[in-house]
């Protein structure tokens, strides 16, 4: 686990299932701060990119209505045990994080 990212990739019958979760508040910008009465500014992951051996295989464009600590899973064909799966996200404030895993 790096930067709050959890990523697991498992292959069965040529189909790799990638499951991932990212630690992030996913603030919508519509919630009020109870103390100040002001809206908490929007802060959410916009793009999460998944690469298989350096080639983009899946891109997730997220809006602020995706749950806090986003969970994303997807499937692809053509992976092999030991291949690298790398994921990288960037949020609306330009902050980013990445992590990688090998297919097992």
């Amino acid at each position: 686990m790096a930067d709050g990212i959890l990523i697991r990739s498992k292959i069965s019958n040529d189909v790799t299932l990638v499951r991932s979760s990212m630690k992030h508040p996913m603030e919508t910008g519509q919630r009020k701060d109870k103390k100040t009465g002001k809206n908490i500014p929007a802060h959410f992951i916009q793009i999460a990119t998944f690469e298989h051996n350096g080639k983009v295989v899946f891109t997730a464009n997220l809006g602020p209505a995706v749950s806090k600590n986003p969970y994303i899973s997807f499937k692809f064909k053509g992976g092999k045990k030991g291949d690298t799966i790398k994921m990288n996200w960037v949020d609306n404030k330009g902050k980013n994080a990445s992590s990688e895993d090998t297919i097992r």
Partner: protein
Amino acid sequence: MKRRLFLKGTLAGGAIAIAASAGLLIPRTVMAAWPKSAFESKNVNDALNAIAGTTTTDSSGKVKINAPEIAEVASEVRITVDADMDGIDSISIIVEKNPSPLTAHFELGAGALGFVSTRVKMAKTSNVIAVVKANGKLYSAQKEVKVTVGGCGG
């Protein structure tokens, strides 16, 4: 002579300014990949138009959406989309009655299958719509998810 030098100086300065503005444009083009206008659309048709350029969808059952009948926790509703089709470009998840209906838009690269699972927030009881773009056409499926006020789960 002095005038010549001055001219040379301004020309060089101009070239730097052009290079700088070109450089500034690069990160902007990268960021433009996130479909801002689609995510900011206030209704389903505007979101579909922004993301796919059409609102016509085939809802004949090629796409399957899996979502709970009743959301136990409205801030974490698990949505799974399954489409057994070739040539899928993208899968979008739309929560009809949310302030901004488009919730997530997934782009599939080579080898990716028509499957995605994620968790979304829901403002109130609403249809959740899965839209799959394949071979230039849109295919959809929808399911109503009840959100109970008061959170007693039923």
